[in-house]
């Protein structure tokens, strides 16, 4: 059960960007430097969305996480199109969903081992 606070959502998202930065390194070698532009768009849109979700979503079950990811990807793609990013949508989709899956697995299975009360604290890391 995920019952994150607004602070928890933003803090967790910020930590997820460290992982995303690491994942972006091999992707930039594979798909080119435009990955870093996409990374920057993802940070902006991700933080805005988490702020909104912090106010409107109390409980986030697994199915909703999937739906929110699809929405986030759509908005990032829109941002990339508006900024004329030189990258095919297929590359952006592979980058986004592979990163998303790794980050999800990290927060579902790895992070809670090292911070036992992370979920109890509304996903807040520095509390």
């Amino acid at each position, binding site marked *: 059960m995920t019952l994150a606070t607004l602070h928890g959502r933003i803090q967790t998202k910020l930590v997820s960007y460290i992982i995303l930065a690491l994942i972006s390194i091999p992707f930039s070698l594979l798909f080119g430097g435009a990955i870093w532009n996409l990374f920057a768009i993802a940070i902006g849109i991700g933080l805005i969305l988490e702020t909104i979700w912090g106010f409107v979503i109390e*409980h986030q*079950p697994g*199915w909703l996480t999937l739906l929110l990811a699809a929405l986030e990807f759509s908005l990032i793609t829109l941002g990339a199109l508006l900024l004329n990013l030189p990258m095919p949508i297929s590359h952006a989709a592979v980058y986004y969903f592979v990163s998303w899956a790794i980050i999800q697995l990290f927060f579902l299975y790895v992070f809670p081992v090292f911070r*036992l009360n992370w979920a*109890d*604290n509304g996903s807040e890391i520095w509390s």
Partner: protein
Amino acid sequence: MHQKPSNTAPGRFPIGIIGGGFGALMAYAVLRFRGVSSQDIRIFSPDSSPEASWHAFVKNINQKTLRSESVAHFFPTDSPGLATYESLKNWSIKPLIYSWFDQYHPTVEFFVQHVRSVARATGFLRASTPCRVARIEKQGDSFHLFEEGSKQPCTIVRHLILAIGHGPITTPDPIAQYQAQYPYDTHVASAFSQKNIRPGATVIVIGDGLTAATEWMNILENGGKVIAVSMRGFTFNQPLNTPRRYFSTRGFIPYRTLPDAQRLQTLRDATKGTIPGYRYWNKMFAAAVKNETLQLIQGSLQEISQTEGRVRCMVQLPKNASLLPLEADYLISATGFAPVTTHPLLSQLIKQYNLETIDTVLKVDESFAISKLSSDHSLAFVIGPAAGWSLPCADSVGGMKITARTIADRLLGSETFQWREVAFKGRQWLRLMTRKELI
């Protein structure tokens, strides 16, 4: 890491846990995971295993699955959930998919296996002393624990965790009077006792929670008819035993800021009996109401008598002076447990040390410590239903986990991301997953 409470003399223990059920296992598992040695914790309980009394209860009501979800387990970490564990065990993705929709509920048997496996991996039974603590005395920076009738303490502990579970099973007065009058009559029984209900029988079920609804199901599946009676009425479709928001700071921090009277009312509302919205149950209950094999009555039981081998009840309806007579083959009382403050050990402590209570609720601080029994070097905590003042969901596996982690933080200090601690936890987790005993 390895921040242990300081060593004490032989026969004395840094941490003592009174009670041997779920609360005790959770507190013990979290402390062991955080690096406290099994030699530094002693559990005092007459129970032979942590699930024994709970398992006997659920067997008697024929409960097959738990109301709780994937994350309600006894691993000290949230990861992996029981759905992941079951998926890997049975090589099936079904539990995970159910879990994504909050529809995963472990079976009683799977849960019992899990409890036993955590007890083994943490050395819980080895740390247990078969003993019923009847009296506690605070002396300086330690607690002296006494067995029934003994003037010498059986042990001395520095920190105390009270994991005493619920108060006794409640029996409404008319039922208690009836049972005193007809002690061998089997037509009136508690849900938690063994019962022999004839198929097709009409049964009055008093109560409005999961236990009552499980009994409705048993009776309906046996071709019987249910007359359900509750003083407060019935609340359907609540997934967990308390509203979900209380399982995180998002819900329990605002709760803790409420003025006492409002907080007490919120606690009462949050912990009232409710019925989960299992799809199969909803379908069955809707059909039963339609064909009049399930009758829901809001009212309070006033009187029970025998009439030609059957049970006759008088029920007081709300806002109605008249009494409603009901007749059935059996009556089952499923009204839950008395407040934990009626537990003999806790009620004695309350009187002895003038502990702060509000109505029937013990006041504990935000780290689940009893202030009047705690000092800088010796702390007394509660886990389980007794912790409700600080956490409305304390009487649930998820709530006990929050309580246990908070207690561990208070005793051992907050968790850090120092590499030694991270490496230690990683090792502990691997041992837990490979069913090796924790360090």
